[in-house]
Every structure is written in structure tokens, then in C-alpha cells.
């Protein structure tokens, strides 16, 4: 595939993302307006009079006919206007942008921890299968998919903040603040990384070019780290892309445990405050980021691996 067709591929991906994004907007719209719940009543509280509720409906534009509401909603979205937060009185987009960097920070450090611990563990258990380290990878992978991470976070706080007094238990500010939340979130990600690294390394170590490398008399270290790992890299990058959803979901829980001032904590707080414009804005923002990141990840694979490139290309053609 040439550069030309690669850019065509990127363009195709972007075009295919449009219906998905419209779908997300539609779902958000339906969620607030069509489902049996009444946001205006929820905002006003159960004791409020019908007049107050009606007033809130007018402020939110919920009293207009559905199609008008939809047009209003879409046109303001196109202008980048997500509405005004009921709690802060500021534009929703401003609140989101203030908190988003914290979530990104947490996500990156957590992914880094997961990779730094997960990949070596995966390699060890591939190089020495059927030993204790082989089981370690299975166990870590299982824990990743079965651990209530908010509980793990609390346990870490008890151990490191209360018992050992080593690390702060909540908040942000110094680099030390991010260690516990990042470890907590990393546990969610690590399982898959260990498992995939192990599988990819085993496959890679059994292939012909490794036999050739060994036959050439290269040392085992060079064979494993230079040759085998390089070829195992693609599935590892793939799994990191597939985990974006876990990363976001996990961030909501983790931020809540450690009072980490990211978007997840803001979302939970705004639900308690029934700040509907803010809730909608954050969810829409998260989903859009998710879609865009997925496209970026796909394009990165396409750049790394010609085989992936071909199969992605085929997949798009079929759609």
C-alpha cells in the first residue's frame, strides 16, 4: 500500500467515524429526553413545585417539541457549545478542559506502569514456560479482569498511606500523589499486557527467523530481546489500543477513590449535583475522545505493520 492509499485509508476511517459520532449524539439526546426519567424533576428535587420544574424545563429548552430541541442541540454542538454548567455557571467545555489534563496524566502514567511491569513479566513467562513464572502471568491476567479496582485502591491507601505513611492518600499536586492511583489503574491494564506479551513472544520464539538467529550463534539475550521482542511488538501495541475503554472506565473509579481531580471525578460529582449539561458534556466528550483515539491507534498499526495494513484495508472495503 502506498502513501497515497494510506491517506485514503485515514480519510475512509474518518468518514466512517461520522455515522458513529452522530449515533453517539443521538443516544445522548434520547437518553435525556425520551427515556422515562424527567431531568427537570430530578434537578428541581422531589419537593419542588410544578412551576419550578416547568421553569427549569424552559431554561434547558426541554419544553419545546422534540425535533426543535434536536435542531437546537445539534446546532449548538456544531458551534462547540456544550451548554452552561448548572453548578459552576461556566461553559461546560471550559470545565472539561480544566479537568481533562489530569485524566490524561493518570492514564499515561498508569499505562507506563502497566507496560514497564507487564512486558518483562510476559517475556519471562514466555522464555521459561511451565515454570512458576508461567503461572504468574495467568494469575496476573485473571486478577486484572476480576479485581474491583476501587477496593484495591482503598487497600493500597491503607497499606501505603495509613500503615507505612509513605505516600499521600488523595489529591493531586506532587509526583508522589500519582503513584497510588496509577498503580491501581495499571492493575486493570496489566493482565492483558502480560498475557498478550507471553503469547506473542512464544509464537515469535518458535518462528523460523529465531531458529536462524540461533543457528548464527547469536547469544540468547540478543535473540530474545532484539529479534523476538521486535516481532512481538505489534500484538502488544494492539492490546494497548483495545484497552482504551478499560482505561476510561477504570479512571472514573480510580479518580473517585483517590479524589484525583480528573474528568471521571467531575462526572460523578456532577451526577450528584444533577448538573445535566455537564453530565451530557462529559459523556459526549469521553465517547468522542474514545472514537478518535481508536482511529489513531488503527492508523498507527497500519503504519507499523504491512500485514495489519492489508487486513484493515480489506475490512474497510467490506464495510
Amino acid at each position, binding site marked *: 500500500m502506498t502513501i497515497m492509499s494510506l491517506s485514503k485509508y485515514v480519510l475512509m476511517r474518518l468518514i466512517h467515524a461520522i*455515522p*458513529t459520532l*452522530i*449515533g*453517539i449524539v*443521538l*443516544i*445522548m439526546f434520547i*437518553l*435525556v429526553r425520551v*427515556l*422515562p*426519567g424527567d*431531568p427537570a424533576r*430530578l434537578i428541581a428535587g422531589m419537593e419542588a413545585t410544578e412551576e419550578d420544574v416547568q421553569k427549569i424545563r424552559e431554561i434547558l429548552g426541554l419544553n419545546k417539541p422534540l425535533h426543535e430541541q434536536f435542531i437546537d442541540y445539534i446546532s449548538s454542538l456544531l458551534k462547540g457549545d456544550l451548554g452552561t454548567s448548572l453548578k459552576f455557571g461556566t461553559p461546560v467545555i471550559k470545565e472539561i478542559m480544566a479537568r481533562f489534563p489530569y485524566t490524561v496524566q493518570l492514564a499515561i502514567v498508569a499505562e507506563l506502569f502497566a507496560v514497564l511491569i507487564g512486558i518483562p513479566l510476559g517475556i519471562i513467562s514466555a522464555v521459561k514456560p511451565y515454570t512458576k513464572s508461567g503461572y504468574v502471568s495467568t494469575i496476573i491476567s*485473571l*486478577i*486484572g*479482569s*476480576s*479485581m*474491583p*479496582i*476501587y*477496593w*484495591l485502591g*482503598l*487497600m493500597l*491507601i*491503607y497499606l501505603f498511606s*495509613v500503615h507505612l505513611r509513605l505516600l499521600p492518600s488523595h489529591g493531586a499536586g506532587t509526583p508522589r500523589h500519582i503513584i497510588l492511583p496509577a498503580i491501581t489503574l495499571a492493575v*486493570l491494564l496489566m493482565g*492483558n499486557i502480560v498475557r498478550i506479551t507471553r503469547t506473542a513472544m512464544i509464537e515469535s520464539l518458535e518462528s523460523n527467523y529465531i531458529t536462524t538467529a540461533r543457528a548464527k550463534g547469536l547469544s540468547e539475550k540478543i535473540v530474545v530481546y532484539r529479534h523476538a521482542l521486535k516481532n512481538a511488538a505489534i500484538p502488544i501495541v494492539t492490546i494497548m489500543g483495545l*484497552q*482504551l*475503554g*478499560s482505561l*476510561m*472506565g*477504570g479512571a*472514573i*473509579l480510580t479518580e*473517585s*477513590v483517590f479524589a484525583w481531580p480528573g474528568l471521571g471525578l467531575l*462526572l*460523578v460529582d456532577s*451526577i*450528584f449535583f444533577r448538573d445535566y449539561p455537564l*453530565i451530557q458534556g462529559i*459523556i459526549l466528550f*469521553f*465517547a468522542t475522545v*474514545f*472514537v478518535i483515539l*481508536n482511529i489513531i491507534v488503527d492508523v498507527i498499526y497500519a503504519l507499523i505493520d504491512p500485514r495489519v495494513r492489508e487486513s484493515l484495508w480489506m475490512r474497510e472495503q467490506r464495510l
Partner: protein
Amino acid sequence: MDERTEVIIEKLKKAKREQLKLTWLRFKTNKAALFSLYVLAILIIIAILAPYITPEDPYAFDLRRALEPPSLASPFGRDEMGRDILSRVILGSRYSIGVAFLSVLIGGSVGLVFGLISGYYGEWVDHIIQRITDALLSFPMLLLAIALVSVLGVGLANVAVSVGISTIPVYIRLTRGLVLQVKSEDYVIAARVIGKKSGYIIFRHILPNVISPVIVQSTYYMGLTILIASGLGFLGLGVQPPTPEWGTMIGSGRTYLFSSPHVVVFPGLFILITALCFNLVGDGFRDALDPRVRVLVKKVKI
């Protein structure tokens, strides 16, 4: 029906029984999965019998005994209201496992129906359903559940519905994939040729062939929905206190973490054990499945 047909039908039925037996034998070779199945059986029995086997009243508070650490009299200690945590964990199994079961039932049945329609009818019906699935899949599952809860409101039924809905897209994809595999089999084509109605074909010929992978997927989802529903409970967006759902117990106990960690330790351990067992049983079932359909069943995470 002549005698020959009857013999053939009898043979087919026998083959089916044999296959089921084989699946069970294959499952049994996975010791971890088998052990987890026993643990789950015990947990489910506890959940069913919960109100009759709690040593104390799970709601009876006694502030003089608040936050008492574990002792012989109350092995898991007492919570901030002096309630017996063991009794609350026992009753909580009902809510935690129950909510997960309800949501898997809701998500599984709705997803199954739409997946069957999407896969069987194809063309524009398939197209519309698949685009909606795409949009739903672009929400991380916990986020979608939170979005739904923020509109429907908190509480047991709403949480079950919200978490259930957020599992639908994966079920649609799974069922559709399976239907596409089965659709071109000879017996389906034969049924169509002799003029059977679509509804009949779907129920008699397609459904029985897609149901087992859907059940395996549900086993994985039981593990995940327990984590998500209890996560919502922890955030204060799930089952509300004083109902002793495990996540809710952790959420209300976290304030006392510094002085009395036992309040959050035990409910969390039970979430971990239950989710772990469902995942291990899921692994066992999955490996016992036909390899052709095995690839379609997805391991799921938050």
C-alpha cells in the same frame, strides 16, 4: 412418520446427548474451572437462603458496638452502625449476584433478539442495527452504565437495567456472527426451500445453534457486571444504603478506612472471589466450546 425416520431422529438425539456429555468432560479437565463452579454453587445457595442463614439481623444497628474489629462473636467485625458485617455480606450476596444476574438476563435477551434479526434478515435491517451497535460500542461500558443511571436514577432495578443495556452491543455482535455462520448450513436452506416461515426457522433451527456461546458469554458477563454494579454502588450511583450490596458497603465504609479497614476488606474480598470464579468458569466453558464459535466469544473487562 415411517420407522426409518424415527430411527434417524433417535440417532440424532443420541448424538446430541453425546456431544453434551463430551462438552462436560472437556470442562471437567479444567480443575480451576471445576473448583470455581463449586464455589459459585455455594455462593448461589447462600444468596438464595440468605435471609434464613444470617447469624444476626443485617439491619439491626447498635451504636455502642460500632466499628468493632473482627472477633469470635462477629468474625468479619462490625460496621459504622454496629451492624454485623458477616450477616450483611451474606445478605449482600443476594443483591450483588442478583443485580448481575438480572442485568445479564436483560442484556442477553435483548442482544440475542436483535442479533438474530440483524444476522438473519441482513440488508438494511442489519445495517441499521449494526450502526446503532457501533455507536453503543463507542461508549466504554462503565461510562454507558453511568450515563443511563444518571438519567434513570439510582436504585436496584435501574442499575440492573442500566448495566444490562450496556452489555447489549457485545451480545448483538456475538449473536449476529453466529447466525451468519449457521445461516448457510444445509438444514437452514432446506427449511427455507420447503417453505417454512422465517420465525419458525429462527426459533427451531438457528436459536438452538447459537444459544451455547451466548450462555458462555453470559458467564463472563456475570463476572464483569458484578464488578460494574458494585462499582456503581461504591460511587453511590448503584443500590442505595442501607441495602447491603457489596459495593455499596465499601462505598459507605470507606470513610472509616483509616481506623477500621475491616469494614471494607470483607465485602471487597467477596466481590473479587465471585468475579474470579465467574471468569474461571467462563474460561472453562469457552475452552469446551466448538473452536469455530470459540473465537466469537469475547473476554470482557470494565
